[in-house]
């Protein structure tokens, strides 16, 4: 056999090693499948590690009135009704068991005085619901899963970027890409693939996301024929750092507000009184982000264009115990002692609610054998995600996707055949930037793309701005045909950026096309030219798929809720 790539074969290939990928790998292995797990970075460094505030699950340890029904209603309301209620129901019911399971695997959370898992309040959660450990819950989650996965018989492949899903006719057959440390191409033959590749916040300039969040998985799925949904729904977290310039966008956890932090404008006014007098700082993220945006737009912003977030009234001991990494982060990076002074914060792109459309219970995409879980999958969060719901999402749907992928793989009568021709095609695409002496600098293009996204698909949108943004993205796509890279395939970030950029450009086109279609304001999607919610749009999800090489946009009906679940929403309205 031609040996221009390293080859591996598994029943199930899991792409991505954040919370969802790790949980999926554990589940698929437990179901009897052989499993390969591919990390884009080192194991344990995935973006989940940055999650801070907590895991939402209705344990009722602090507020015994809490229940899955209330969590269900809060999540549906947070998503403004366009979530898939079937996913939300599964999610709210299974989240508690997934948290207890973490504890059985060695994870440690803050405790109540009587020794149970402590829960903190968070935006738009009716009760105190977030299981947490200080402000480093994501680290605890990922370390616990990481230490479980390495003893579960899963093969871990680190620092590999997969750039193409391989198919055998319709079915998934594996994936192809490259390994950083030796610059080799790699090909994974697999009967089933679980995408757990996270989001694509890196298409924006001001974001809490790491370099990895370029949406490879979503774009690969799209290229393989999968349907995407809710791509217009991009979450702006209300509180990112704003100063100094190098840290702009780094997350300031919602736990600051959960623990009593107060937002004020430059005049010292507690402005949330005007936007959500009931929930105040703990309103949902879309509402708080818009409020800060408005304060700045109307001239009441802080010197660097944000708001003040003050927790100093809770005292140094409390702050250092409950928010240690925030304390350290501001002290070291911004010269601010948050036990004495307020933080300066502004909205930052944090999360994408949209992604690959999946079957609610299994994570199956529209491509046979391809599954998706976590941020890359759409449907659970609708138009706005509640804080804390992401970590439980990863666990609940990571497990389900892993199990169902294993079941599918082990049940196949004939194994799919990974096509060398597809791999060779992808190799040609990957190698192109080396074949030019002159061409576009990928970093330059990325910066221009980020500028377009911030200007034209930001927190406040208009039809004209979106149309203009789409044209700009299409122009950038053309220029991306002429990307150039120097050097070799050995650990070459400029070269890596070339392929990442193509993925990002595809997803940005989907964001614009979807956002243009949704002529209303809902959740994170705020149209200045359509400032109100339109009940018609409340019954539709925007979907995108590739047909004849072109991006097609359509809609699907939101699955109607059965009466007994709809009543839960009314009961708490």
């Amino acid at each position, binding site marked *: 056999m031609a040996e221009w790539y390293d080859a591996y074969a598994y029943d199930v290939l899991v792409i991505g090693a954040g919370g969802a990928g790790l949980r999926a790998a554990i589940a698929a292995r437990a179901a009897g499948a052989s499993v390969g797990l591919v990390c884009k970075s*080192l194991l*344990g*460094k995935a*973006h989940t*590690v940055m999650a801070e505030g907590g895991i939402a699950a209705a*344990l009722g340890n602090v507020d015994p009135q809490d229940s899955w029904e209330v969590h269900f209603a809060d999540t549906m309301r947070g998503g403004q009704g366009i979530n898939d209620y079937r996913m939300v129901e599964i999610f709210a019911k299974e989240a508690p068991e997934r948290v*207890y399971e973490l*504890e*059985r695997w*060695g994870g*440690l*959370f*803050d*405790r109540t*005085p*009587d*020794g*149970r*898992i402590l829960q903190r309040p968070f935006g738009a959660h009716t009760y105190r619901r977030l299981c947490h*450990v*200080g402000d*480093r819950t*994501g*680290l605890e989650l990922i370390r616990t899963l990481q230490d*479980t996965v*390495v*003893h579960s018989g899963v093969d871990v492949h*680190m620092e590999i970027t997969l750039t193409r899903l391989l198919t055998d006719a319709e079915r998934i057959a594996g994936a192809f890409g490259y390994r950083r*440390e030796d610059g080799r191409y790699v090909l994974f033959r697999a009967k089933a693939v679980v995408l757990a590749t996270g989001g694509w916040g890196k298409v924006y300039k001001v974001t809490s996301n*790491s*370099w*990895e969040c370029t949406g490879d998985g979503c774009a690969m799925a799209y290229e393989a024929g999968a349907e995407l949904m809710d791509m217009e729904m991009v979450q702006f977290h209300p509180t990112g750092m704003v*100063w100094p*310039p*190098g*840290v702009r966008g*780094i*997350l300031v956890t919602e736990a600051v507000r959960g623990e009593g932090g107060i937002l004020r404008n*430059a005049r*010292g006014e507690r402005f949330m009184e005007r936007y959500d007098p009931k929930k105040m700082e703990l309103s949902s993220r879309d509402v708080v982000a818009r409020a800060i945006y408005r304060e700045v737009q109307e001239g009441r912003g*802080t*010197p660097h264009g944000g708001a003040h977030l*003050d927790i100093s009234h809770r005292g140094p001991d409390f702050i250092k115990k409950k928010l240690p*990494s925030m304390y*350290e982060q501001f002290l070291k*990076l*911004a010269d*601010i002692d948050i036990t004495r002074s307020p933080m300066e914060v502004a909205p930052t792109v944090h999360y994408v609610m949209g992604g690959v459309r999946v079957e609610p219970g299994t994570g199956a995409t529209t491509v046979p054998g391809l599954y998706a879980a976590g941020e890359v999958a759409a449907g659970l969060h609708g138009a706005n995600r509640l804080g804390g719901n992401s970590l439980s999402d990863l666990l609940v749907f990571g497990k389900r996707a892993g199990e169902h992928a294993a079941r599918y793989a082990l049940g196949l009568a004939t194994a799919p055949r990974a096509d060398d021709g597809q791999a060779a095609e992808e190799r040609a695409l990957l190698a192109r930037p080396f074949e030019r002496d002159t061409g576009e*600098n990928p*970093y330059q293009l990325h*910066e221009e793309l980020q500028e377009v996204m911030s200007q034209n698909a930001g927190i406040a949108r208009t039809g004209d701005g979106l149309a203009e943004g789409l044209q700009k993205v299409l122009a950038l796509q053309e220029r991306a045909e002429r990307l150039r*890279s*120097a*050097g070799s395939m*050995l*650990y*070459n*970030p*400029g*070269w890596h950026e070339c392929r990442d950029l193509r993925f990002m450009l595809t997803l940005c086109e989907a964001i614009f096309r979807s956002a243009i279609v949704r002529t209303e304001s809902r959740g994170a999607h705020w149209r200045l030219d359509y400032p109100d919610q339109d009940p018609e749009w409340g019954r539709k999800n925007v979907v995108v798929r590739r047909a004849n090489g072109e991006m097609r946009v359509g809609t699907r009906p939101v699955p109607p809720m059965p009466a007994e679940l709809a009543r839960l929403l009314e009961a708490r309205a």
Partner: protein
Amino acid sequence: MSDGGSRGTAVEARPEQARWEAAPPGPRAVATFQVFRGDRTGGELRAYQVPVTEGMVVLDAIHYIQHHLDSTLACRWNCKAAKCGSCSAEVNGRPRLMCKTRVDEFGGQPITVRPIKVFPLIKDLVTDVSWNYRVNKEIPPFAPAPGDAGPWRMHPEDVERLFEFRRCIECFLCQDVCHVLREHRGTDRYYGPRFMVRIAALEMHPKDTASREELLHGKGGIGYCNITKCCEEVCPEHITITDNAIIPLKERVADAFYDPWRALLRRLRGRKEPRGT
């Protein structure tokens, strides 16, 4: 809104910020970065001129070089907020996280950035840290009693003392400065401080039932640590690695292998209590 008097009661004056506004850095302030470039076959320091911005960290400078001067410069990074532990390097000879190392700290002196020394070089600032992952796999995982399925009640104090160990972000800076690993090339006989912290977190977990004393005494090589505390000095998470992890583990091993009566006594009193506390 300018920094007028209207903030009065709500927001205190912040001298730090006032300084930024009063004295923005000169627009063309430039710093020289000497960055190691090379691979397994060899390499050298290369100089780059990088414009300095307010509050800039070393990782910002590396990114500037990648974006504007040489896109082939290899380094690891993820979160840029000291939470993932990817961007470890030796800055002016000291193991640091580049995302947390401020450029203004060096007062305009040239800044030298090299890869961490203890692990084999891959390219530029990237080293092969896979040994750490192999070690981690050798450590018996968390093992609660069979059938003890929870939900568990655990005393806050019993759990909170482990938080320090669980804070570890696996930047491996402690491994880089450990004398046993660095000067004596001792990766074949000592797991290094990172994994003493890992084992301490397991051994002191109130629900764990496994014993790792034999491993510590044998392959883990805890006896090689002579408590110079260099690991603690470089830990970006300020974990008290020697006093809180290594010394209690050393005492356990000493009891188990040289003072079986005390080991038995400790077992009877509830073996998960760390000694000496």
